[in-house]
């Protein structure tokens, strides 16, 4: 019991703390804190599959993208849509629901898409799996960029109702709780067994394909939810938001924190986000006892250097792939 409180409570407490702190600061910084919470949701979703299965996926941002686009489009006023996106599928064109149901819809579409993609793809492992999931990302990006029936293509999707920081925080916390429940469940343990030793897992009667597919689908649903949070936090999106940059940044956050633990996913997302927004502020002068002004461009160089160094010097991440605990174990 105590273990659950620590392992689940501390990451969730950190999420809540982020939301609380976001209430007491300037508008611009509040947006950065909200983005950090969205990143937590995306990285936790990624962790559910990559962390538990040990198979790398470059395709999760496509589930984030479909979740974001669906949740965005169904909440935009139909009259606006008739004007800005007249060639949408009729069901998308006429739909008009409020934000919270749209988040559930985003999770559903993310899970469904992941299931459809996973049915053939979960037979693969290693680098072929990575390349195949990347191909899915490429296709999703390409279709969102050009197909007028599913979205505003290269144009910005705007006029989306925005939600406050608490909705984003609750969404990120739900993703974390679901991820924890899954990894403690029978299915999570089975998937972890296939990660540790595929041959032994198969000899014990575990279907690697089925467990991976289950993990992938759940992970896709959480990614879809994260996409819904993202679109309602930003208020406007373009396809370019959901491509290489987001894929790389979220994967790096996960590996930075420690790919094999939920605590690593949450910590990695928040740590990189914090560093990112601090350096961004410092480029426009920040006051920390004295006035600090960094030259433009330091942000990206520092982030890149820190991530590269941690990945090279400590490949198992900050947490070493362990859940949060009070005792220091080697």
């Amino acid at each position, binding site marked *: 019991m105590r273990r659950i409180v620590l392992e689940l409570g501390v990451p969730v407490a950190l999420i809540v703390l982020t939301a609380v702190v976001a209430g007491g600061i300037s508008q611009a910084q509040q947006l950065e804190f909200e983005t950090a919470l969205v990143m937590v949701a995306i990285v936790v979703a990624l962790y559910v599959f*990559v962390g538990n299965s*040990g198979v*790398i996926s470059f395709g999760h941002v496509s589930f984030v993208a479909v979740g974001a686009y669906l949740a965005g489009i169904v909440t935009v006023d139909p009259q606006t849509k008739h004007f800005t996106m007249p060639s949408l599928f009729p069901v998308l064109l006429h739909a008009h629901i409020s934000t919270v149901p749209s988040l559930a819809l985003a999770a559903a579409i993310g899970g469904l898409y992941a299931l459809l993609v996973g049915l*053939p*793809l979960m*037979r*693969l*492992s*290693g*680098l*072929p799996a*990575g*390349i*195949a999931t*990347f*191909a*899915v990302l*490429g*296709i999703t990006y*390409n*279709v969102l*960029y*050009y197909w007028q029936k599913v979205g505003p293509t290269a144009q910005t999707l705007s006029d989306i109702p925005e939600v406050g920081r608490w909705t984003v925080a609750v969404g990120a916390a739900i993703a974390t709780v679901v991820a924890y429940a899954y990894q403690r469940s029978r299915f999570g343990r089975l998937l972890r067994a296939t990660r540790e030793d*595929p*041959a032994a897992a*198969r000899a014990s009667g575990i279907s690697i394909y089925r467990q991976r597919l289950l993990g992938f689908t759940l992970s896709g649903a959480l990614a879809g939810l994260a996409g819904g949070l993202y679109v309602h936090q930003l208020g406007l999106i373009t396809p370019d938001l959901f491509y*290489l940059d987001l894929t*790389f940044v979220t*994967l*790096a956050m996960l*590996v930075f924190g420690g*790919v094999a633990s939920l605590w690593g996913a949450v910590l990695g997302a928040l740590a990189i986000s914090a560093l990112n927004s601090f350096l961004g502020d410092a480029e426009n002068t920040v006051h920390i006892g004295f006035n600090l002004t960094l*030259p*433009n*461009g*330091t942000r*990206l*160089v520092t*982030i*890149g*250097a820190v*991530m*590269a160094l941690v*990945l*090279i010097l400590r*490949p*198992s991440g900050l947490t070493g792939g362990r859940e949060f605990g009070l005792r220091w174990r080697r």
Partner: protein
Amino acid sequence: MGASPATMLVATFAVSFLLQAIYLLAFDSRGRAVSTLGQLNAAFTVDGVNIRWILLVTTVTGIVLLLATALLLNRTSIGLHVRAATQDFRTARILGVRANRVIALSFVVAGALAAAVSVLYTVSNPFVEPDTGVQITIFALIGVVVGGLERLTTATLGGFAVGFVYGMFGDLLSSGQSVYLPSVVYGAVIVVLLLRPAGLFAPLRAGQVERV
């Protein structure tokens, strides 16, 4: 070293991200026109057909580098170590292959080859942007995995296959459909990987789960 392949891959992307950031800091986000070796873009005429010199230079350099790499891998003891480490890393180490040196060396060779490619590429496409390298790297990575990354020949053929499919569908698709060319190529990549996970040109028995 000693990290899992996935971490290594993300680490190399992190380094690439760092290099891009340095590029942004040193120059800026706008692309730059390149004039180095511009005279190679001039054409010569054979039997009424105009051919740019750079195409000839690229082809010859490509063949020479490919042969040199093949010789290095197949005819030297270093190459033997590299191939042994590819086949079975643990056993190779037990038999006295100095793994880290092998990895470092192949990294250096790969870097040198990539540098040669980048010169040829920028001469024939004389415009560089911060993310120029990323696009080529992704394309190359896909080609290598599709062909079969365990052998030089299969990897090379994979690169050709992706380029060939890209060109072929580029001609087959009508102008309205041609915006979906990337999707078609990625779809073909997925189909190939599903049918032949070890690579299109790899021997059939490769890629099976084994345990000793």
